[in-house]
């Protein structure tokens, strides 16, 4: 089941990248004067990729149902999933949008479409690629969700531009060789793609670093968790791809330019360029496989909880029940801003606001009400729920990432629930 989920996930990424890459190539990279059938062929490939994606997306739904039902999912369960969950509603929206886009792409593939029409189609494909973020690890983070989801969406788009565009470039270069087209055209396309790739790589580096920081959090997690190790492998592949990208950017373009100028054998230059582009494309495909695996792995930052759940180990979290470990604050501190001392609340829901300085070891706070742990908070606001009427003592304590080591950094306040 897990292998199937990872594989389908990788295929989804790959097909969407292929869709965007073909449309970008047909709409933006091909110079004027290219044969119309080449554009039509690229659009047809885009349609094929989109149909493959829709097929894989139906499988995604069935795999999701099978995970929840621990077997063949019933139609009733799938309907409940689609209508009652956030990820189900995202599935409906993406599937509908994808089907409409497929219809539009099919209509364009039937006729001699202008580059502008294909560009418009490429722009319409962007939300379909980016919206994968709405069911990814990014949507499950506790803090700065809008930033993490946006960054994930940009990361997906940049990947599709680069790796998907490479597949488009590879096809165009291969067809150019087959048709013995002028080398100047190939050189122009490679030059145009280089600009797109350069921007994509910069975006990938920035968003990739941010995503890694959010989902991994520390070097220890990077090296000691499954998620971290797979991410390292992905970074290795990314470096290899970047190496070939650099080679193409610095060397291949120059070789093609020299050949166009008559200073080098055109056929040798064309073959060399195609060989290098093929390798870069292949590494890009490998990256999609690894990305598919990452989507089914728990983010490294949850390793502590994952290990606790797997072993069933008890956590020592309350002062009244077990002996606690306290470490020096080392710069950590917390200040409760709300509730204020003596504040009266009419309901059992009490809004909580605080300022947290993490220092060297601090990661989040534990909230104790009358000595009983009520929750953990990573952001600077939250709500205490289910409080009984009466006077209560709230204590916030700064805690290390392992959830067990509390620091000598706390703040207390008394309040009343009517």
């Amino acid at each position, binding site marked *: 089941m*897990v*292998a199937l989920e*990872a594989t389908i996930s*990788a*295929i989804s990424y790959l097909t969407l990248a292929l869709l965007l890459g073909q449309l970008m190539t047909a709409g933006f990279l091909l110079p004027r004067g290219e044969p119309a059938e080449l554009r039509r062929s690229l659009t047809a490939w885009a349609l094929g990729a989109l149909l493959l994606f829709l097929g894989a997306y139906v499988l995604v739904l069935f795999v*999701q149902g099978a*995970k*929840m039902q621990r077997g063949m999912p019933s139609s009733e369960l799938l309907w*409940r*999933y689609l209508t*009652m*969950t*956030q*990820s189900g509603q995202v599935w409906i929206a993406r599937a509908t949008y994808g089907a409409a886009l497929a219809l539009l792409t099919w209509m364009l593939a039937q006729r001699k479409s202008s580059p502008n029409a294909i560009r418009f189609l490429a722009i319409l494909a962007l939300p379909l690629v980016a919206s994968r973020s709405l*069911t*990814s*690890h990014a*949507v*499950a983070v*506790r803090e700065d969700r809008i930033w993490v989801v946006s960054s994930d969406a940009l990361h997906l788009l940049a990947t599709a531009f680069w790796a998907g565009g490479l597949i488009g470039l590879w096809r165009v270069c*291969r067809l150019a060789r087959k048709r013995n087209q002028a080398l100047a055209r190939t050189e122009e396309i490679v030059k145009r793609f280089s600009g797109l790739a350069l921007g994509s790589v910069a975006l990938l580096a920035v968003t990739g670093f941010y995503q890694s920081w959010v989902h991994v959090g520390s070097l220890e997690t990077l090296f000691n968790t*499954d998620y971290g190790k797979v991410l390292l492998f992905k970074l290795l592949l990314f470096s290899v791809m970047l190496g070939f990208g650099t080679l193409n950017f610095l060397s291949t373009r120059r070789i093609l330019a020299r050949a166009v100028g008559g200073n080098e054998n055109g056929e040798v230059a064309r*073959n060399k360029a195609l*060989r290098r582009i*093929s390798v870069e*494309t*292949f590494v890009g*495909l*490998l990256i*999609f*496989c690894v990305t*598919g695996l990452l989507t*089914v*792995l*728990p*983010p490294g930052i*949850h390793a502590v*909880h*994952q290990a*606790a*759940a797997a072993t*069933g*180990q*008890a*956590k*020592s*979290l*309350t002062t009244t*029940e*077990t002996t606690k470990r306290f470490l020096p604050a080392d710069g950590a501190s917390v200040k409760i801003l709300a509730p204020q001392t003596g504040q009266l609340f009419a309901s059992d829901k009490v809004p909580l606001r605080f300022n947290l300085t993490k220092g060297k070891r601090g990661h989040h706070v534990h909230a104790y009400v009358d000595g*009983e*742990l*009520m*929750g*953990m908070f990573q952001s600077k606001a*939250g*709500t205490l*729920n*289910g409080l009984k009427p009466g006077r209560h003592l709230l204590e916030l304590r700064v805690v290390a990432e392992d*959830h067990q080591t509390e620091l000598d950094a706390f703040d207390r306040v008394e309040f009343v629930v009517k």
Partner: protein
Amino acid sequence: MYSKFSIGLSAVLVLLALQARGPFAWAHAYPAVSVPNNGATIKEPPREVRIQFTEGIEIAFSEITVKGPNGEVVSQGKLRRLTDDTVAIDLKPLRPGNYSVEWQVLSVDTHVTDGVLRFTLAETGK
């Protein structure tokens, strides 16, 4: 060139198939905090069990069942959502003994996880 690329593409597909390996743990939302705590011995009978998970969860596909010393179900009513990541289930009046809290949740990033937490209600005066 085409055949070389085809070989490469085949290798990618093989790699996809080889993703069926075992030692990974494939899950995402875990209990970060529970009340009563996992493994705790408490003196006052709780009126509910509350779990805060590491991620937001979908309550429509999540459940918590609390079982008593003889395996009898002591939780009652519907699972209540307190926040995106925190849920609670009401309990019948408890007597001293060992209790297990069986949880299964669907996280907002579509992953299903489950597990068991435990707590003990001590005899009065102990």
